[in-house]
């Protein structure tokens, strides 16, 4: 196992650990308590303390793209044990828009969700809607699918929308390229993502309430990843995500990049692996329900329960080993 990057400071003394932890909780609305660590792998079970509640990790986050979770109520979501779920900045930024959501007391107030929210930057749509977009140093230019108007999603705009949404964790706007892309574009995107991270940090109006996560890029290139890790871990962000994967690359390549990243990420900060979590279920949807939306609700409920318990089972295994 590779040793963590030395930064000229021995961070392993108890005194420095304590003072680091104190500094973290004083300036950031996030505290990570490592509850158990696997002696064999790098796996750990943690309590991630966020403004709305504590999240037990590892955790799969249900996706509520447009401020709702595909047909289930927030009560149902809560009783399923969900402690954090996702909202999408691009969609919500379009409809109903940040001003309205601010009026409604943020996304929490708009959807009436009591636990935590994580919003992505809106950048992933770059990869999925790539015909419609153009990436420059400024940001990403989109043509709105609703009214054809041209919009620029810059790091500043993304953070501004996420500030209005009031999510507990915000993602930086990163320059995302598909993991199947090779060549100089990958390096360009990686460096740009670092510059955009700095712009996002500067633009965050609520560092005391909202946690901004960096996203490690670099495609499937180990050298590029290492550079990105080296740079981004120097920024004072409360957490890191591993991005630019899960886009159709080979599983072996995927895992290699993931383990490289976790080797170089600080132990005391949470790690978010983006875009992973689709569970292949053979849900037996009975013919009788095929015309009713309630069938989908049943499946959603089942799927979320499955994911929550999968997360829990993983955590419990960590406790045991």
């Amino acid at each position, binding site marked *: 196992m590779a040793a963590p990057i030395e930064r000229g400071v021995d961070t392993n003394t108890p005194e420095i650990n304590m003072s680091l932890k104190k500094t973290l909780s004083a300036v950031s609305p996030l505290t990570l308590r490592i509850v158990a660590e696997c002696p064999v792998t790098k796996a750990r079970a943690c309590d991630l303390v966020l403004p709305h509640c504590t999240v037990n990790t590892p955790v799969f986050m249900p996706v509520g793209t*447009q*401020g*709702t*979770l*595909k*047909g*289930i*109520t*927030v*009560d*149902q979501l809560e*009783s399923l044990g969900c402690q954090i779920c996702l909202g999408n900045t691009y*969609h919500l930024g379009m*409809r*109903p828009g940040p001003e*309205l959501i601010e*009026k*409604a007391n943020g996304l929490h107030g*708009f*959807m*009436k969700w009591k636990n935590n929210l994580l919003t992505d930057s809106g950048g992933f749509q770059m990869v999925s809607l790539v015909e419609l977009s153009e990436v420059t140093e400024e940001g990403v230019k989109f043509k709105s699918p609703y009214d054809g108007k041209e919009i620029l999603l810059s790091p500043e705009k993304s953070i501004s929308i996420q500030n209005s949404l009031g999510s507990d964790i915000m993602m930086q706007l990163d320059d995302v390229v598909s993991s199947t892309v090779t060549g100089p574009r990958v390096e360009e995107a990686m460096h740009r993502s670092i510059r955009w991270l700095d712009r996002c940090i500067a633009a965050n109006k609520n560092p005391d309430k909202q946690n901004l996560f960096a996203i490690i890029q670099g495609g499937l290139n180990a050298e590029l990843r290492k550079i990105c890790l080296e740079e981004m871990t120097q920024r004072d962000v409360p957490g890191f995500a591993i991005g630019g994967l899960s886009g159709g690359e080979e599983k072996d390549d995927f895992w290699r990049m993931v383990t490289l990243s976790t080797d170089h990420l600080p132990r005391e900060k949470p790690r978010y692996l983006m875009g992973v979590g689709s569970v292949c279920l053979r849900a037996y949807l009975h*013919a*009788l*329900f*095929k*015309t*009713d*939306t*309630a069938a*989908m*609700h*049943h499946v959603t*409920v089942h799927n979320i329960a499955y994911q929550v318990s999968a997360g829990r089972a993983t955590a419990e295994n960590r406790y045991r080993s």
Partner: protein
Amino acid sequence: MKLELSRVVQGGCRLGVLKGLGRSGQHSLEVPGCLLYTRCGTVPHLTQDTLHTLTNLPSVTQLTLSTIAEHQEVLEDFKDGFRKFAGLHDTVLYCSLHDPVTPCPAGHITNKTVSVWGSGGRIELTVAKFMALQRTVRPDWYQSMADGETWQSNTSRKRVRKSVDRTLAHLDECLLVHHKTQELQGVAVFGVVEGGDILEERVRSAKETAKRPVAGFCLDGLQTGSMDQALRIQLIAAVTKELPEGKPRLLQGVGRPDEVLACVEAGVDLFESFFPFQVTERGCALCFNFDITPDPERAVLEADEERDTAGETHENGELNLDDQMTSFEINLKDKRYQDDFRPLVEGCGCYCCRNHQRAYLHHLLVTNELLAGVLLMLHNTAHYLAFFGALREALAQDTLDLLKKKVLKEKCGQTKSKE
């Protein structure tokens, strides 16, 4: 089943309780009242846990044979009846022939058969097949097979007469099979009164059906859109005169609040509750006021609202088709609700009104999210059930006229949100 009436207004409204429902006879249903509308055992959009955020649910759930018929084989393999299949535990199951929301294409009825439409197409039912289905489904109560295809405006007298004759013949055959079928012992059968828009045929059908040993009566062919209100009331009044007082009358295909009030006055006890579902499907929320308890503060507020909404009235057509918005609802897709942070209806205790605002519902509708249907169905059902509660209360207190005035003049709040 046994109907215990506590009030009967001369030749008109009845107030009471329908008791002895279900296999164990433990359930009861207040009348006038409605059944819980489903097509396949599930209230549209709702799972068991969201459904049960509603209080005072009707104890009787309606299923439609038209939805279930195509699954006959599966149900026969399952062997244990529809209740167990759908996980419906504590409810009385009533099986209707058709789905009040989905009109059937005309022209497929014969002397011996009627047809229902499943997802795979037309399924032809003889009495034998109809009864085989009932035996497999094992409801607590069902309507007998009937020919109700008299709603088209150019239906001839001859055709109407045929519908009455056939329906009586089907009833007799159903009853024969019913008494020979082990699985249907203790199950209630309703006879169906037909007769189109012809008074003599209606009376004939009522008289003849009343002679048969049925537990109650369905009034068919009078659904919204089939005829104007005045004629409907005239026919219902003539029919109920011929029916025994002690047996319940279920009117099919009518659900609009103004129609409900008029039909209750003509002697109807039970309705299907598909109307809240139709309102939900058009992205609307029921908001008509049926509260007649005197409250001086509210009187002032309402006077203000009336002034605001003058000129925005939405007349309900006589032949109001299913997808047309009524004056009893607001259209949440309208831009005016984009930043309206009030609940759908102030004071409504449903899950939606307790937790969410019009602006959120508007967003869900604009973005085509599934949750819109869930929340609207919860609210619309709660509102509709509360309306029936108010109706029963008005009958008990002799304040029906006040209720009628309130409901009928009501044009749903179109006021701008107060800044």
